[in-house]
């Protein structure tokens, strides 16, 4: 078999420098060729390998050599959360930014669709700012530290009765109706907490925490969910049964309560929190993606791919995954804010990592001073609220914009 394809080529002269029509392809030659990878992919694989080596070395020095955290040139020591964070950023870059850059036509189209939703554009801008400050801020700014004497300082535009504030007043004092009022100052634009920590600084550090928790845990959760959901839907049968029954069990244990249980028994660091939300919170996303993928699996274009001779992996990656991206993005945009909220709630309850400058902890700090120093709870609460709101708006708009069938209206 196959020799006839040869004859076809030769019948056409065979000496042509390039086969440009389909009749002239020598498939046996192609069968003999190996698989080539694009340069982009090679670069990506290199970066991932580098990262993996870094993690491996870190793990080695911690647990095998027991020399403590590994020190790297330039970077110094890298915490577990930072490892995850760097990987998350890499993935966002490779799967989010690079395709948009490579496909300007598609990008313009998405942007045109996305632009229609004003609330989403504002949200996106807000999130980009928060993200940028959150990523860069903690690298260049000093850590917020309790400053005895400068407790309960008001924000720059406000004032507070001097007896409620610390011993000194950064913005000087005034006297109103015989009460000495402590004025705000640009030294602490958003004021300070009851322990004298600068609220602006704390909020910036809080941005990093929220972004880390939200993005890392969501990436983990969505990746697992997509892998499980797609595998279950594509293969069906026993694979589906086993995976989905496991999801059932996992989902009966609400993540929040699971975290409480684990926080109680093994302690609660930010790393543990991220892992728990990332590894145990994907049940409902997996269900959504599975049901979507089940529908897509029956579409004729899946059959067309199979008919072309595509492997299962190819079909899942190139057809199933892109076509459930609506569900994926929906799930992701539902997951990010809920995880940020959960982290804040846990920090608010005081059950989280006490060393982490989370917004939830700030809100909790200001709870008792609400009547006097309302800004301590309100300002970080506002950041939290608007971040969650922005993610929700953004998700809604993305869902609309990413649907290529959405374009036409009318009939």
């Amino acid at each position: 078999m196959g020799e006839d394809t040869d004859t076809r080529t030769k019948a056409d002269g065979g000496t042509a420098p390039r086969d440009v029509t389909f009749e002239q392809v020598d498939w046996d030659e192609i069968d003999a060729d190996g698989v080539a990878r694009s340069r982009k992919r090679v670069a990506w694989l290199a970066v991932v390998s580098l990262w993996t080596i870094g993690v491996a070395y870190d793990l080695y020095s911690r647990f095998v050599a027991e020399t403590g955290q590994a020190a790297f040139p330039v970077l110094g020591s890298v915490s577990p959360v930072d490892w995850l964070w760097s990987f998350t950023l890499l993935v966002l870059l490779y799967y989010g930014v690079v395709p948009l850059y490579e496909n300007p036509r598609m990008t313009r189209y998405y942007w045109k669709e996305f632009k229609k939703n004003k609330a989403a554009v504002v949200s996106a801008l807000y999130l980009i700012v928060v993200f940028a400050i959150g990523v860069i801020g903690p690298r260049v700014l000093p850590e917020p530290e309790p400053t005895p004497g400068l407790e309960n300082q008001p924000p720059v535009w406000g004032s507070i009765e001097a007896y409620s504030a610390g011993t000194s007043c950064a913005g000087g004092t005034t006297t109103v109706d015989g009460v000495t009022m402590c004025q705000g100052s640009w030294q602490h634009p958003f004021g300070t907490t009851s322990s004298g920590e600068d609220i602006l600084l704390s909020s910036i550090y809080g941005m990093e925490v929220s972004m880390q928790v939200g993005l890392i845990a969501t990436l983990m959760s969505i990746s697992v969910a997509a892998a499980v959901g797609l595998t279950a839907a594509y293969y069906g049968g026993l694979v589906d049964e086993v995976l989905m029954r496991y999801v059932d069990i996992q989902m009966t244990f609400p993540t929040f309560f699971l975290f409480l249980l684990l926080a109680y028994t093994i302690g609660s660091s930010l790393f543990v929190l991220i892992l728990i939300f990332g590894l145990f919170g994907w049940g409902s996303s997996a269900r959504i993606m599975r049901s979507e993928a089940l529908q897509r699996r029956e579409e004729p274009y899946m059959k067309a791919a199979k008919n072309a001779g595509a492997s299962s992996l190819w079909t899942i990656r190139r057809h199933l995954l892109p076509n459930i991206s609506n569900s994926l993005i929906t799930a992701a945009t539902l997951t990010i804010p809920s995880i940020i909220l959960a982290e804040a709630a846990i920090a608010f309850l005081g059950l989280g990592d006490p060393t982490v400058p989370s917004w939830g902890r700030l809100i909790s700090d200001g709870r008792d001073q609400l009547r006097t120093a309302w800004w301590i709870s309100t300002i970080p609460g506002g950041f939290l609220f608007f971040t969650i709101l922005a993610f929700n708006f953004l998700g809604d708009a993305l869902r609309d914009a990413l649907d290529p069938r959405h374009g036409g209206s009318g009939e």
Partner: protein
Amino acid sequence: MSTRDDTTDVRDVPTERDDQPLLKISNLHTYFRTDSEDVRAVDGVSLTVDPGETVAIVGESGSGKTVASEAITRLFKSPPGYIPEGSIEINGREITDLSDEELRRVRGGEVSHVFQNPQGALNPVYTIGWQIREALQLHADVSKSEARERAVELLTQVGIPEASSRLDDYPHEFSGGMKQRVLIAIALACEPDLLIADEPTTALDVTIQAQILELLAELQEQRDMGMLFITHDLGVVAEIADRVAVMYAGKIMEKGSVEDVFETPAHPYTRALLDCLPGRGGIGGIPGELPDPRSPPPGCRFADRCRHAIDACRTGDQPGMHRVGDAPDHTTSCVHFEPGRDSSTVLDAGSEPAGSPSPPDDLERGGRR
């Protein structure tokens, strides 16, 4: 937008009927609002249906035939759809300016619909009996038991065996053909004067289609009901219609009695459509695409795909309805049939040989005998 009133032309054609038509649509437009320009789904359609008569609207997808049928009782989704101009009279009463409440009484009472897709047209969570009873009780004050009796009667009439035991079944327990029968029963529940059947057999197999067509014809005869039959299938038209209107891109291209239109198709579009039928020799289809319904080109909508297009076809509005030969009701919207032009350019052109679509310029000169 066309300001020319197609109806004036129709009035030129002497009609022998003295009595009032059951349905009279004049210069109906139906547009849909979009982000950019409106989609002109129906763009000036005039049509009458007499009691006991079957009129078919035939056209391909995108011709606006379904929208035209839904515009009669304003069933299309609104917004975005709206009727910018036109008049619809039922038994002499204008219904375009009726309120929703008044229109509600027309729907199902005087005018009923049967739709294309029987699978989705029945509410899956109610029994068949409930859905027929609902139709009955909306328009007549009947008790529950009377309604039940009537429902059994209706189901028996549409050929559902053991009707009374099937009243409590849910739609998913019926086959496609049976569902369509149930939907016909619902449509007939209140003895409508006009039945609008929108591709009622398209989703069904030929053998089931034959059953449904026979049923419709039978029921129509019993009730002397007018029927507006929407279809894309010329075979079905030839089978069931008395008169036919050919629609293309929101306009009527040709109308007349079914015999006239099939024997002497006048409009180049009708002729091309008939040529596409299997077994008619003309293999090759109609090259080109429908014009953009947002901004249709000037002149005849079909001009760009027409073998006989001349300069006059590409200016002004859609040509008026001109009489074809001596047939009383047979009119077409083609410049070649304008008084003073030679209509034989179109009428005598044979169908092109299979597999070799020649450019239109060549065919201009065609018309050899």
